[in-house]
């Protein structure tokens, strides 16, 4: 298969949807590995598909009573538009004053967000030593990486807080995960990587009040891995 044929066939969409005939399937795989234009095409198709799936799911999780038949533009209804716009103005102001200057300082990290990703296994509360021993993250000092894992917390909360704890138990990174991610494959970006090699725990807590307040007894999942720095 050459590039023109791949374009003519709309092979990227057919491939992703499983509609390419078997003989063309292998030919197209061979082609997109060899053609940077088609490589970008297939990456964009998959990114759009997964992005669309996530966007549609988020919309679907809205409470039924609050959903208008109009679908994706619900938030433009007057009852929502005024407070949403007010919040948006505040958000823009905050971004201009705080977020953007901070991002500029860490711009070197931004380009690395998707550089490497690692699958973490195990992950029951208290850890799984046999599974955890397999989890090794090999990156360079300060290199961003993503951690992929199945989010299987014990207990149900509307929101979870995660902490990346070093071997001393100190949280070196933290963030939030929505409760609707429970039992799903999740990816967390560790922008800027970590500063030292060794054992780390990715610990999840149920957020009791939905405002990120946690207590140790609300730990719901723990994934252990070892960071090794590449030379």
């Amino acid at each position: 298969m050459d590039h023109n044929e791949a374009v003519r066939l709309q092979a990227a969409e057919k491939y992703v949807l499983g509609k390419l005939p078997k003989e063309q399937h292998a030919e197209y795989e061979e082609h997109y590995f060899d053609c940077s234009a088609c490589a970008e095409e297939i990456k964009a198709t998959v990114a759009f598909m997964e992005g669309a799936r996530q966007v549609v799911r988020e919309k679907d999780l809205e409470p039924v009573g609050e959903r208008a038949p109009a679908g994706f533009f619900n938030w433009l209804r007057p009852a929502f538009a005024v407070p949403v716009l007010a919040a948006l103005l505040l958000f823009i102001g905050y971004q201009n004053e705080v977020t953007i200057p901070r991002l500029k300082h860490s711009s070197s990290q931004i380009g690395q967000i998707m550089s490497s990703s690692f699958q973490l296994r195990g992950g029951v509360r208290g850890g799984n030593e046999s599974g955890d021993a397999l989890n090794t993250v090999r990156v360079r000092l300060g290199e961003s990486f993503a951690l992929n894992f199945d989010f299987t917390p014990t207990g149900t909360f509307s929101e979870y807080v995660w902490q990346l704890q070093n071997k001393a138990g100190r949280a070196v990174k933290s963030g939030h995960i929505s409760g609707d991610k429970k039992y799903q494959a999740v990816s967390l970006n560790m922008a800027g990587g970590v500063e030292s090699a060794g054992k780390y725990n990715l610990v999840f807590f149920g957020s009791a009040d939905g405002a990120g307040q946690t207590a140790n007894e609300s730990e719901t999942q723990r994934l252990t891995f070892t960071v090794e720095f590449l030379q």
Partner: protein
Amino acid sequence: MELFAFTREYVERLREGDPSTELHFVTYFDQLLRIKLRARMLASETVEDLRQETYIRVLVKLREDGIRQPERLGAFVNSTCNNVLMEFYRSCSRTSPWDDCYLEMPDHAVDTEGFLITRQMKERVRQVIGELPKKDRDLLRALFLEDKDKDEVCKQFGVDRDYFRVLLHRAKDKFRVLYEIDREARSGEGSSKGAA
């Protein structure tokens, strides 16, 4: 859009273990390998194992023997991955013939679940979807959310499977244009910072 071409110099740097070239190599092929392996409905940890194995074999082979056509590095990675896959299937048949490594998707659709989507990508997807006609948005919602056969959903909406493919093609093209603008803006920021 800036397309990438592999050169003899690139492969030489890879052979010598140049860190930035290795990083580019992994970044470039990471998603391609995932896409290829996910089309075979393998467990996510198997996908990761096979991906890592492919990288290792490619780098070892490059360092030992090099390749005759550096500009066809992509084809070399693909054929190495095919070999790794074949060995994986063979090892499955030796150990447990009914192992789920044989459960390929009947139509080879790519399982996109869990692919790394940045917040910015998602915002652009949201924008593109927001600009679609209501019928198309509802169709996407039904196809992604309802646990129904795709043919059944298309029948319900009075369209055929080709309609969904064309819809996806158009929406993806819009998304790609927006995403390229973002990417160029980011690289512009990077280069202006670099020059400063």
